């Protein structure tokens, strides 16, 4: 029987997306501050 661990998958995918987007935003924001 396939284990029911989808929760972990969702959590991991969210974390990776959040980290990536937050860092992208931080870069753009820091550049804007120096304009």
């Amino acid at each position: 029987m396939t284990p029911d661990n989808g929760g972990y998958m969702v959590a991991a995918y969210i974390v990776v997306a959040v980290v990536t987007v937050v860092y992208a935003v931080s870069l753009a924001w820091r550049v804007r501050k120096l304009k």
Partner: protein
Amino acid sequence: MTRKDKALRLARTGQIVTGAALVALAGIYIRALVFTPVDRLQGPAQKILYVHAPAAVSALTAFAICGILSIVYLGLRDRRLDRAAASSAEVGVALSVAMLISGPLWGKPVWGTWWAWDARLTSTLFIFLLFVGYLIMRDSVVDPDQRARFSAVIGIMGLVLVPFIHVTVYMFRTLHPDPTLLKPSAPSMPGVMLVTLLSSFGVFFMVYVSFVIQRYALADLQELRDEEMLRDS
């Protein structure tokens, strides 16, 4: 065009490429979550592989590139190399955060444990810590030339350290083997999964490159501002 204009232009380019990379990442997400079959043995958690492994590889590549650029900097003393090395390091740290959180989230359901002191995990954890220290150190050194030299020293030492940590933990593990860990079946992966994984590697690398471009531009702008402040004082 002034140096500042060039830097702003580069930042803009970086932002556009990042935008494209993030769209591609969304594509990977859809492909992995919807169009890639679920592993019967490991369950849906196995799909974490498609984001964890590429993040890990990109992070480690980032650090390796930092180390290499550091060596070249020490030889050529061109500060642009230092800016590039530092940019790669910061992006590496960001990607490492993604890697270090997604890893245990995968480990718990599949291995039964959040963390395992195996060669790979331990090496990546300590390289991450080293580069966090690297970034903190850069923050505390004011003189750009001194900062560049110190960073190069740490970058090079980090590069040499990595294989040692790997061997250390490997030897420790073969001495004290853990009960069998369910290893993800990488070689015997069906075609559709392999395609998802490989495209994800490509996309994450694109994310890495686009981040480094932006970070480099930012570093340039920061140094410009520091020089201005020095002149004005």
